[in-house]
Every structure is written in C-alpha cells, then in structure tokens.
C-alpha cells in the first residue's frame, strides 16, 4: 500500500466512509502495479466514479480514469469493481455492501495508465464485422425514401443495438482471458445485430469473417458477457442465435 489519506473537513451528517483501493500503474515508469488506499465519504447516491473523482480532486490528481457522460451512455468508465467488470458511473457505492471498494483496470485490455485501458482491439474487431447496413441500393435514391420494417423485424435486433462498446463483456469473457486472437463477445453480438436486420444484405461477408477458429466457434457459452452487460444486450444470446443460424438450426 502506497498511501492512506482521508478527508477530515466538511463531513455531511448522512455521509458514510469507505476505503477506496485504486490499482496504480504507469507502464512507462513502473515495474509493477500497486494499490493506493483512500478513505472517502459517500452518500446513498454516490457512484464509484464520483469517489474516484473525489480522490482526483482532493488527494491525487494524477489518478488516470476515462469518463465522459456519467450516465452509462458513453461506455468510457468500465473497470473492475470489487472483482467484477462494471461501469463506474453506473455502480453506486451503497449497492456494493462493502467497506472496502477495490477498482482496477479492465482485464483483457492493455493498460494505458491506472484505470484507463486501450480500446483499439475492441474497435478493430467491431470494425471488422462491418457495423453498418450493406445494400446495393440506398435509401437516398429509393422511391420509398426509407427502408421500412415491421415492429417484429425491429425486435430481432434492437436489443443488440443498445451496445455502447464499453468492453465489459470482453473483460468478463473466459475465452478472452487466454486467447489474444479471439474476436470477442462484443463484435460477435454486433455481427448478429446486423445479420438479424431485415434491411441488411451483407450477411455473407460478415459470416465469412466470424467463421473462424478464433471467431464464433471459440465461444463456449459461459454467459459471463451477458451477466456484466450494463445495457441488457445479452451478447451470449446473440452469439448462440448466430451460431444456430450458421449450423442450420434456425433460418
């Protein structure tokens, strides 16, 4: 432990105290990572991101954390909180039921510094599955001016369109833990999202990309990706449905 600090002034009467442990590591300077401890105050509504920002404000401004929207929309503040991947802005201290809150950078992503990780591979995999509608024609010149869908057709993929690319699913995946070539649940679920879209005509090129030993066949349906998804995307379902389609179980 490198440091113990606490806020001693201006305590709210309803505030409680916890110990926040932050894993610090700068690959450019440090030989190894180490935890730093901070005693911080929290209210019923305080999120993990709030207390990390308190630490930056009052104790150590050099703590590196990526965040933006603070409302589980941008997908920037994913990290390991008490051992599980979560969004820091979407996790309240009070719901953790612990006097010690440990935050670490997401697993299976290279660390930039402290809690900030590189997303290049996630975005590369996402880009490889062609995350856009593929058609020969375009709605800009079509007489109908838009590609109409029934509510039933929308339901086939809308759940998977909620993905915010936070990377929590890739961090929880047991295959990602050991296979650096695996496409990952995020990209596979997005492949299903576009394959299931009735407007899309690029199914063959997408399936060709994921029909690989390090692609969809490497998923073992452990389901951890779905358990940690903060937006209810359920990547495990999308992957199994897509695999069922490729195996001929469904049309």
């Amino acid at each position, binding site marked *: 432990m490198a440091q113990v600090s606490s806020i001693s002034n201006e305590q709210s009467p309803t505030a409680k105290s916890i110990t926040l442990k932050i894993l610090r590591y700068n690959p450019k300077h440090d030989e190894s990572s180490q935890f730093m401890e901070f005693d911080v105050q929290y209210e019923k509504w305080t999120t993990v991101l709030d207390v990390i920002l308190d630490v930056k404000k009052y104790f150590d401004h050099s703590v590196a954390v990526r965040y933006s929207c603070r409302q589980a929309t941008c997908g920037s503040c994913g990290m390991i909180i008490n051992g*599980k991947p979560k969004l820091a802005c979407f996790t309240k201290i009070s719901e953790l039921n612990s006097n010690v809150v440990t935050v670490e950078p997401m697993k299976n992503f290279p660390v930039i510094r402290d809690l900030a*990780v590189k997303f290049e591979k996630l975005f590369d995999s996402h880009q490889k599955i062609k995350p856009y509608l593929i058609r020969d024609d375009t709605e800009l010149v079509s007489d109908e001016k838009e590609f109409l869908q029934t509510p039933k057709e929308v339901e086939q*993929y809308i*759940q998977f369109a*909620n993905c915010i690319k936070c990377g929590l699913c890739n961090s*929880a995946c047991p295959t990602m833990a050991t296979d650096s070539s695996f496409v990952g649940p995020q990209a596979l679920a997005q492949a299903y999202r576009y394959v299931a879209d009735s407007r899309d005509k690029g199914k063959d090129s997408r399936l060709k990309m994921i029909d690989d030993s390090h692609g969809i066949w490497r998923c073992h349906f452990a389901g951890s990706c779905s358990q940690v998804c903060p937006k209810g995307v359920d990547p495990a379902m999308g992957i*199994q449905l897509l695999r069922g389609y490729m195996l001929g179980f469904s049309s």
Partner: protein
Amino acid sequence: MPQDEHREGIGGMINPTRYGIERVAYLLMRLSGLGLLAYFVAHIYETSNILRGQVGWNEFLELTQTTGGHIFLAIVIAMCVFHTVNGIRVMLGHGGVGVGKPARPDYPYDPASQNYRHKIGIYSSIVLAAVATMYGLAVMFGE
C-alpha cells in the same frame, strides 16, 4: 501484471466465483473433458495389457479392485455423466435452442440467455452425476 495485453490468463478463466452457476458449469465442463481425455488414454494403455497375456491382464485388473481404484472409477463416472448431460445442454444452447428470443430489454436487464431452463440443466447434470457416482460407489464397495 502482464501489461502488453493485461489478460486474466488461465487463473481468470478457471475462477468460478464471480459469475454464477453458469461459470461453475463452464469450469466443470472443461475439467471433466480433460479428465475424460486422460481416462481415454489410460484406458487404451490398460486394455493394451492384454498383450501380456492373461496373467498380465489380471494383474492390471486387480488395480481396479482396490479402494483407490474404486474411487478413481467413481470420479470417472461423475465426469462422464456430468459431461454428457451438460454437454447436451451446451450443444442445444450452441444451436440457439433455449437461449430466449431477442426483445427490448427492461431494467434491471436479466439476460434471457441465462434463463431457468439452462440453470435447471446445469443443476440436473450435477445432481445426476452425484447420483450416478453414489450408485457406482455402492456397487463397487458393496461387493
């Protein structure tokens, strides 16, 4: 900390404590698969003893009549039953069977793929493996 990739590694892959019974089933499936592979190799070696004639064959068979041999075979029964029953569940899941249907998710976002059918399948595999093992032990030690 391996900073180049920062992967969890095998330790993270086999940690069954964080993601519920599905991850426990994942670990047991892998362990039983490796165990059965090892048994398959050992079984080939065991049956090859027949080349040593009846005496050699009987000598080796005596190993399975010991307490250790019985426990070993009981573990093989457990692995075999669990891997078979859970394997059927996983194969159906891989085919998209029983994983739910896509729908607009409502908070708190219970994943449909982790539904009661799969949980029943996992618990059934564990219970059936335990029952088969107990039956096997009763037969072997009841002689």
